[in-house]
Every structure is written in structure tokens, then in C-alpha cells.
């Protein structure tokens, strides 16, 4: 992967090595002050655009925008797993779709549609499936190869697709149609601005949580894992456990997105767990830029938006254009569209709490004293 992230490789010893590196970290923050502005601006623009969208769009477009926001949430889950931990999950739709099926069954068979029950249930389903699959694929005596994990997740998703198609209880080819709307007391969430803002709110909360997560010490360990797994293992981290944890978190986010998607569309069908949706989410993240959370969101919005806009006139050739664009991005812009505005240093960012000024001063003085001493 051409994500040369020398900065992180330097930052890893900085977190563990102790004194001499603190000075380096402080020079890092000094640099950030001058460059570290673009990301919050991009996030702000996206948020404002998302908040205003329903006011400017016609009703049917608001429904479409809601779907895009849900897919952006889904893209976020894949970005956590691939962009931050370097686990290629080609079967992310497995968690998305199984949660969708789960809440659809809850609504169909048990009449449970309360938002405070179905959303946690969907999240839990995604989490459980991700724990099971991720635990099986990632944990064990020998670390699994990247190829094995990606093919394993792909196969899992494909097998789930076949199972959903053939299992009568899950509706077979047709899936489960006409799911009752999600409810809060007597209020029912139907397509429209209310649903849109609900989903947007969830996206913002999840986004902020993810942002906190990837900028924490845990996120630093993940970045190290992505860049050089062996080194992280030598530092004493349990690399496999870290991977399994982030995989499970990704699965939980995907599950939440899947349950929202099921209620928004009103039906679930086998494609939702299958390879098509799994690769679609890979597309979003690669387009937008993996390794930045906002890149995943932007990618989902752009891919879905352009495909919606083009599909009226160019329905037949749109998938071909999409393929060509994807190939161009992989070849020439491996960091995605976001890399046009976002520098490398800012993409990597800094981790954990910022070192306090006075601590740095003390350390510098310490170092000076030590130098002067002999």
C-alpha cells in the first residue's frame, strides 16, 4: 500500500520511548498549528450541507439523501476496519445485511419496532456476527495473512447471500417486504425530513465517537498495526486482539446502518448481505479516501449522488464509468479524492491528549541540564 506514513512510524516510538521524543512531538504540534486547518473545515462544510439539504431538496430527494446518509454510516464502518486498521473486509455487507434481516424479523414476527429496541438489537447483531467471524478469521496461534482475511470475509458474505436466497423463512429470493416503520411510542418514522434528521444525528454521534477512537492511544496502536504489524507485536501489543476489537466495532456500526437501512427502505433482500453491497462500500471509501473518516462520508455521498444523477440518462454505461473512475483513483490517487485538499501530515494527525506546554518545557530543561552536566 503506497500509504507511506513515515510520520506515524516516527510517532510510534514517540509514544512509547519516553523523554527524548517528547521534544519531537512538540515540534510536531508546532507544525500542526500552521497546517492543521483543512480537516475541520471540510467536516464543517459537509455538516452544514447535510443540515441544509432537506430544506433545499424536494421531498423525493430527501428520501434519497436519507439513504445516502445511512450508506455513509455504513462506509464509516468499513473505513474504521480498512482505513485505520488495515484489515481488508470484503464482507462488510454481512454485518449490514444480517442486522437488516434481524430487525426485519423482529418487526415481522414479534411486532417490535420501537427505535430504542431495534437499533440496539441491530447493532448487537452486527457486533455479534463481526465478533464471531472476526474472532475466527483473525485470532489464533498463527497471525492470519491479509489475503486470507479478505477472502474469508468475502466468502462469508457470499455464503450468507446464498443462504438468504435459499432459506424460505428469510423470504428466499424476494427477501422480507413491507417492514413496519420504526416507531417511538405512537410516533412512526416514515420517509421524510424527520427520518433524515434522525439518521443525520446518529451519523454525527457515531462520527464523533469514531473520531475520538481513532485519535486515542488505541487509534495510534491501530495506525502502527496498519503500517507495520510486526513492530507493533514486538512492542508487546496483542496485535490480533486489537484487530478483532476494531473489526467488532466496525461490525457494530455496520449493523446499526443496516437496521436503519431496513426500516428506511421498508424491505430487505439477499443482495443486502452479498458481495455486491460489500464491494460497493469498498468503492465509497476508496473514492473518498480511506484513513480519513470524512473521506468515507464524502465518498458515499459522491458515488451515490453521481450515480443517482447519471442513472436517468446513462443507466447502462454508469457502472462502466464507475469502474474506470475507480481504477484511475487506485492507480493515481490511492488516498482518494480527499487527498486533493488534505495533506499527508494532517491525514495522519496526532494521537491522544496533547502534551502539556509546561511538561515540554521541563523536559527541554532536563535535557539541557543533562547536556550541560558533564
Amino acid at each position, binding site marked *: *500500500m*503506497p500509504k507511506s506514513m513515515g510520520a506515524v512510524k516516527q510517532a510510534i516510538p514517540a509514544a512509547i520511548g519516553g523523554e527524548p521524543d517528547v521534544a519531537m512531538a512538540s515540534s510536531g504540534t508546532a507544525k500542526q498549528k500552521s497546517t492543521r486547518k483543512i480537516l475541520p473545515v471540510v467536516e464543517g462544510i459537509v455538516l452544514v450541507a447535510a443540515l441544509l439539504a432537506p430544506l433545499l431538496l424536494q421531498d423525493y430527494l430527501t428520501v434519497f439523501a436519507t439513504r445516502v446518509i445511512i450508506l455513509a454510516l455504513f462506509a464509516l464502518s468499513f473505513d474504521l476496519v480498512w482505513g485505520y486498521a488495515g484489515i*481488508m473486509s470484503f464482507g462488510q455487507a454481512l454485518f449490514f445485511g444480517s442486522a437488516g434481516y434481524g430487525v426485519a424479523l423482529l418487526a415481522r414476527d414479534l411486532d417490535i419496532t420501537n427505535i430504542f429496541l431495534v437499533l440496539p438489537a441491530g447493532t448487537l447483531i452486527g457486533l455479534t456476527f463481526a465478533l464471531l467471524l472476526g474472532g*475466527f*478469521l483473525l485470532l*489464533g496461534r*498463527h497471525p*492470519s*495473512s*491479509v*489475503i*486470507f482475511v*479478505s*477472502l*474469508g470475509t*468475502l*466468502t*462469508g458474505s*457470499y*455464503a450468507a447471500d*446464498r*443462504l438468504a*436466497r*435459499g*432459506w424460505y423463512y428469510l423470504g428466499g429470493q424476494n427477501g422480507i417486504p413491507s417492514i413496519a416503520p420504526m416507531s417511538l411510542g405512537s410516533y412512526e418514522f416514515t420517509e421524510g425530513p424527520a427520518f433524515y434528521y434522525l439518521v443525520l444525528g446518529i451519523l454525527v454521534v457515531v462520527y464523533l465517537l469514531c473520531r475520538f477512537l481513532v485519535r486515542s492511544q488505541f487509534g495510534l496502536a491501530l495506525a502502527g498495526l496498519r503500517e507495520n504489524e510486526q513492530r507493533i507485536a514486538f512492542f508487546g501489543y496483542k496485535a490480533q486482539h486489537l484487530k478483532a476489537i476494531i473489526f467488532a466495532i466496525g461490525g457494530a456500526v455496520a449493523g446499526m446502518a443496516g437496521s436503519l437501512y431496513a426500516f428506511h427502505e421498508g424491505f430487505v433482500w439477499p443482495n443486502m448481505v452479498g*458481495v455486491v453491497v460489500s*464491494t460497493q462500500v*469498498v468503492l465509497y471509501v*476508496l473514492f473518498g479516501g480511506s484513513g480519513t473518516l470524512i473521506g468515507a462520508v464524502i465518498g458515499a455521498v459522491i458515488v451515490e449522488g453521481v450515480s443517482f444523477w447519471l442513472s436517468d440518462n446513462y443507466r*447502462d*454505461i454508469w*457502472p*462502466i464509468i*464507475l*469502474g*474506470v473512475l*475507480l*481504477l484511475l483513483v*487506485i*492507480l493515481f490517487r*490511492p488516498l482518494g479524492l480527499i487527498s486533493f485538499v488534505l495533506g499527508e501530515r494532517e491525514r495522519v494527525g496526532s494521537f491522544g491528549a496533547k502534551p502539556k506546554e509546561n511538561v515540554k518545557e521541563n523536559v527541554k530543561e532536563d535535557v539541557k541540564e543533562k547536556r550541560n552536566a558533564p
Partner: protein
Amino acid sequence: MANAFVAAFEILSFGAIIVLIVLGLGIIASMMGIFNFAQGEFVLLGAYITYLAYAKGLPIWAGMVAAPFVVGALGFVLEALIIRRFYAAPIVAMLGTYALGLIIRESVRGLIGGFYLTVPEPIGGSIDIGAMHISAWRFTIIIITLLVMAGCYLLLSRTNFGLRMRATLENPSLARASGISTPLMYGATFAFGSALAGLAGALIVPVFSLYADLGLRFLIQGFVAVMVGGVGSFIGPVAGAGVIGTLSAALPWIMAPVVADVLVFVLAIAFIKFRPQGLIAGKGV
């Protein structure tokens, strides 16, 4: 008795089809370390070329002979233009070849629409052995598969070309120092793998008919077969393909097809988990 024989023949012929499809995938994966996601689409292209020949009124045989050459040439060009950039990074290679496959698949979909187009068997009818009838074409596929397998093996193990190919793939810098043009060898290997996929597509199109997702159907089975067999050798993926093909064809006879489908994948992944090197470990032919 007759039933058992028919079942055995079905299993054998499906196994042969999977072996045929996996051959090219396995050669590219083993020799170049690239999991080519576009391989399914090379199969599709082979099938499409055969269909084109049939639709234009040419003999189907002509299409089947042309398919491996056309697809092989395309593979050579694609390797030189695109695949070459991916050698250092296997995951990027997966994504890049996936994008390539998407382009090919959607182009073919645009050309044929969402239809299932049938191509007649060049050798029709059935072979009768007593009271049992087996499809002559499926029998031909088994024979051709055996011949292609033997041919590939001989090519890789006995010829000068095969030696240079293996040398390049095992130790590129030493091969270069010995005067072998490694970029040419990479291109040739990829073209060879694609040509095999084209041949597979051409041969199976009378059995499965032509539709845009034809290649995708076999891609995942093919990958699983390669992993089960073991990446790195020629014989490993073939063995894996035999196992996966036989299981996929045999299990539906003794249990519900849905369960059998999923069970094959679960068993395969579990097997790879506990034996990552595959059935046959080791490098070479």
C-alpha cells in the same frame, strides 16, 4: 447402480469445470502472488467470444479456438498497462483487478443486456453405455481438462519457457542477472493465465449459457479452491479445485442444496484457517 454412475459422472464433470477455471487463477496466484479478481471476467469474455462466433454464423469451434488467444492477448496488454503497477501490494492488486473486472463485466452486460443467451454444444447428443446416458459435451470437457492440465504441467516443468518462468517468479533479481527479461515473463505468465480462463469460458458456455454474472459465479469458488490447495505451486490449486468441485457437486446429492452450498465454504475456510499452507505446501511446479 445407474443412478450412482450418473451421479459420479455429474460430480466428475463439475469437478473438471472447476479445475479448468482454477488453472489460470492458480497459475497467476501461485506464480505472481496476485489474486486476480478479473479472472471471472476473463472467463466471461471467453464465453462471450464463443457466443459472438455462433451469432455471426461461424462454427462454434472457431470461437472456442479463438477465445483463449483473444483473452490471452488482452491479458498481456492489461498486464503491461495496469497490473504491472500492483506487484508490490497484493491488496491494491485485488482492488485494481476488481475494478478491471467491473469494467469488463459491465461492458459485456451492456452488450448482451440482462439476458441468458444459449450457445449450442458443438458435440451434441449423449453417449450411451447400456441404459445410461451421459452428455457427450460434458465428457469432452473432462477430456479437454485432462489434456490442458497435462499440457500446463509439461509446459511449466519440461520446457525452457517454463523454466524461465519459474526462475523469474521465484527470484526475479537472479533471473534478471541471468539474462531473462523479467517484465516479458510476467506479461507472458499473466497472458497465459488469462488465456486459460478464456478457454474455460469458451468450453463451459454451452453448459451454463451466457449471462453477465457468469464469471462472478465461479470467482469465489475459484479463490477458495486456490487457498485450499495451497498457493505457490502448480499442482496445489488443481488439487484444491478437485476437492472443492467434487464437494460442491457431491454434497447436494445427500443434503438440501442451500445447506450444501454454504457448508462447502464453511468447511473450506475452516480448513484454510487450520492449515494455512493448504493441501500441498511448497513451491515449484
